[in-house]
């Protein structure tokens, strides 16, 4: 039974992968950009799913880590003239460090307080970035040197972000299958029992925080060098809401869910840009509907479909 569904996944995803890899040859720069940004969100959504979906730590500060990474890299490169790869490294270090600090602070908090605390953290970051405009140029935006020798070539960036997204999804997938995956899922289900079973909850929660914030930081850094401009709008609560929307609609606690959700929502957002606020209304309604009626999101639908198909196949083959 398990083998059948695995085969189905591969057969579905292979043609999709081909399409995705060859996309630049078919579309123009506009759609290329849309997809590049979509992959950026795939990274954010997947990494948030790790900490919030799988480990059950509903952090509302994920976008802040991306911003921390972005600004860290941008500032290091612009102010000290360091090469971009060092900036990226610095971004990783700083977002991981902040993730660690936040994780430690939030260790003993119950779910509700965790949400509040992480939200407060994110808002603090936003205000901080705005207020230290002497360095960060605040709301005016920080000009960031583009990657690939200052050219920021669209096609190259497309593949860069595609690669980032692929690596991120792979990492999350591997973590989920490993012992860590078991531990964090147990922690989410019932932390006290997890500890009674011998899981060092503290250790794994922090680990989960570090990994997810580190990934977000790297993504943010690359985003900065791609976009050429960074503003504190990145840390607006709207960005976090977007991430939540993407993961919930795509299917929380699934590997492909955040991927589907991120790409889908990003495309929709761009396509209907002229409708402005109505987009958000629709998204919000969709999230409410899904949370209320069909918790598993899009991936849940896919899973049911797969089970139904293989169920019928078994019935036809006369397997009991």
């Amino acid at each position, binding site marked *: 039974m398990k083998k059948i569904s695995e085969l189905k996944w591969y057969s579905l995803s292979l043609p999709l992968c081909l399409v995705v890899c060859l996309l630049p040859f078919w579309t123009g720069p506009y759609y290329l950009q849309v997809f590049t940004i979509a992959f950026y969100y795939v990274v954010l959504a997947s990494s948030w799913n790790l900490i919030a979906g799988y480990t059950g730590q509903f952090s509302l500060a994920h976008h802040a880590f991306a911003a921390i990474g972005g600004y860290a890299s941008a500032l290091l490169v612009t102010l000290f003239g360091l090469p971009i790869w060092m900036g990226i490294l610095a971004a990783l270090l700083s977002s991981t460090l902040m993730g660690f600090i936040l994780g430690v602070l939030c260790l003993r908090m119950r779910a509700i307080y965790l949400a509040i605390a992480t939200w407060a953290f994110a808002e603090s970051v936003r205000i901080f970035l705005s207020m230290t405009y002497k360095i960060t140029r605040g709301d005016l935006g920080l000009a960031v040197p583009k990657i690939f020798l200052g050219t920021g070539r669209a096609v190259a960036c497309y593949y860069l972000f595609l690669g980032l997204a692929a690596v991120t999804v792979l990492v999350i997938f591997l973590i989920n299958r490993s*012992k860590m995956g*078991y*531990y964090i*899922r*147990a922690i*989410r*289900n*019932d932390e*006290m*029992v*997890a*500890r*009674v*079973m*011998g*899981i*060092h*909850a503290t250790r794994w929660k922090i680990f989960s925080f570090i990994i997810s914030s580190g990934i977000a930081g790297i993504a943010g850094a690359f985003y900065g060098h791609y976009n050429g401009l960074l503003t504190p709008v990145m840390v607006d609560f709207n960005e976090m809401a977007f991430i939540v929307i993407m993961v919930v609609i795509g299917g929380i*606690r699934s590997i492909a869910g955040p991927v589907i959700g991120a790409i889908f929502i990003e495309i929709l957002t761009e396509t209907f840009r002229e409708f402005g606020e109505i987009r958000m209304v629709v998204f919000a309604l969709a999230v409410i509907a899904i949370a209320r009626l069909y918790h598993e999101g899009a991936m849940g639908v896919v899973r049911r479909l797969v089970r139904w198909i293989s169920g019928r196949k078994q019935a036809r083959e006369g397997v009991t």
Partner: protein
Amino acid sequence: MGRTNNSLLCTENLTKDFGKLRAVDNLSLSLEEGEIRGLIGPNGSGKTTLMNLISGIYKPTSGEVYFSGKRIDRLSPEGITHQGIMRTFQVARLFGDMTVLENMLIPAFTQGTGKREASHRAKELLDFSLLGRLSHEPARNLSGGQCMLLQIVRGFMRQPLRLYLLDEPFAGVHPTIKDVMIRTVQKMNREEGVTFLVVSHELTLVRRLCTRISVLHGGRLISEGTMKEVANDPRVIDSYLGG
């Protein structure tokens, strides 16, 4: 009741206060290795609190807990588990989103056992306790009795398991499952030398299963001995009939 004797578990003047309420009062109790000890007493006598104290969920207000001569009352719940002590809860607490098999694997993983080896033992245990066919069901789909049974069987994944605390394992469970529970406990006690401390209100089962009984009342140990001795103890009769 000092720590010099060869008891497996030993509490010394253990006291736990919740504000003004004294849940456990100067309790000194000891368990021998290989026993199946029953712990009975009216509601509110401190049985679950004692379990929580031993398993590291509560820290004592005063007094100590010793395990194989080593002091354990300051350890975290994870730490206690790594000493070889497991426990179940009055309300079956499983990892609902994970399958039965995955639930079983966790205690083994935390010991460093590999997936293949752990799965093997898990299957053995599940088959023995007649839960085998539910291996890939999400734990939340199980019936109440099956949940309790799974909770118990899950603890056996830890090897070596030296002490197992069972908190009201039989409450509201179907008789056939109760049978399976008792057989499993006895098998583990016999073959792997697991010591048990069983809290229960069902005195017939306690008599059938346990070698010695300890009776609590008002957080204090009021009697100890075989079922016959304890049943005839006037203090015990008083506590159950009186207030």
